């Protein structure tokens, strides 16, 4: 607490507002209204996905099976953890603890970036497996030995954790519907990743502002609403993970 230089309150209230309480109320409501927009923004793709998944259950399941569920799971954990630190950051800002705020924001940024790095790796592996829709989608799954050394290492790891004996008989051909699954996979995770990038950028701005001691126990709206945004993006992933990676049973 003591570390904060409290700026006089009125200078922080924009001219259209009566007082800080009104301003806080407004920014919070504004963010929630925006999030309801976001829900429908993602939601429309979810609906389309649901329609097609019901139409081609087997192909979509086949698609799920080709994704690297463990990377998805790790990423979920990373993101949940980042949300936790974000919550701690908001907590710190509520108490006006500036350095703790900065610390937590940076942790959040690091975890968010880690998520993106893992996601990028996943995209790369999918590219090597010929799973990228469009011209480079391969109807025949790649042979076990294909791909870079990295991809081969991942595959041998996969073999190690998979309980079923592999390599018996033919592997099913990929279908158009499976390609469509991959289309949705890339669109959904792509939009999500874009949101992550925006979130990380916002967090960086917050760190910069916090460094310049813009926040105090009396004024922390930007931290709070960025926090809401971050948690929301996390929530979206909480749904993306099971519907893309985990619906692997008939």
């Amino acid at each position, binding site marked *: 607490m003591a570390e904060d230089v409290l700026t006089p309150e009125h200078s922080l209230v924009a001219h259209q507002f009566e007082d*800080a*309480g009104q301003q806080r109320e407004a920014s*919070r*409501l504004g963010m*929630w*209204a925006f*999030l*309801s927009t*976001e*829900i*429908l923004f993602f*939601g*429309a793709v*979810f*609906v389309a996905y649901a*329609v097609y998944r*019901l*139409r081609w259950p087997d192909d979509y*399941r*086949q698609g799920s*099976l080709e994704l690297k*569920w463990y990377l998805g*799971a790790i990423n*979920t*954990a990373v993101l*949940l*953890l980042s*949300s*936790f630190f974000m*919550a*701690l950051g908001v*907590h710190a800002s*509520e*108490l006006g603890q500036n350095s703790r705020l900065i610390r937590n924001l940076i942790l959040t940024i690091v975890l968010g970036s880690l998520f993106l790095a893992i996601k990028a790796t996943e995209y790369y592996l999918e590219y090597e497996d010929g799973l990228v829709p469009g011209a480079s989608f391969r109807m025949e799954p790649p042979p076990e030995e294909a791909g870079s050394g990295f991809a081969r290492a991942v595959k041998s790891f996969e073999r190690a954790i*998979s*309980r*079923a*004996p592999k390599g*018996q*008989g*033919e*592997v*099913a051909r990929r279908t158009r519907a499976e390609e469509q699954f991959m289309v949705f996979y890339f669109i959904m995770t792509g939009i999500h990743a874009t949101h992550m990038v925006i979130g990380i950028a916002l967090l960086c701005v917050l760190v910069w502002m916090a460094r310049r001691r813009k926040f105090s126990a*009396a004024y922390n709206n930007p931290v709070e609403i960025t*926090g*809401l945004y971050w*948690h*929301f993006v*996390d*929530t979206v992933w*909480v749904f993306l*993970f*099971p*519907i893309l*990676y*985990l*619906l*692997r*049973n*008939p």
Partner: protein
Amino acid sequence: MAEHKEHVVPPRVYASVLVALMALLVVTVCVAFFDVDQFTRAHHLGTGWNTAIALAIAVTKAVLILLFFMHVKYSSKLTSAFAAAGFVWLGIALVLIMSDYLTRNHPPGVNPRGEPKYVLPPPPASDRPALGQQPGSPGHYH
């Protein structure tokens, strides 16, 4: 500012929520590798349980995040209303669009294409992959 002191959630709460979320993550991953339907079908409990469980867990996680991380539990009714609105409207989209797709070709005779397409199956049990078998291993195509 004294008059509306915001509710400050103690970090302890955040920590327990995080633990719960991680636990749910582990559960949902484990369930995915277990063919629940195989079990439920044997007990005439219908199918689609894997999906249902995965979604239920996802909803639980989302609710935890919303209530605690996003402070909906401590916020005004208005905030909760807006938080709910997005989901409710998404529900409208989903339900009404599905109302079209799931009732296509009903009732028999009305639509020239014949009877309901999907009929609940009583498949021979031996056709199913064995319990715990990795789904999608080539074996599932007989």
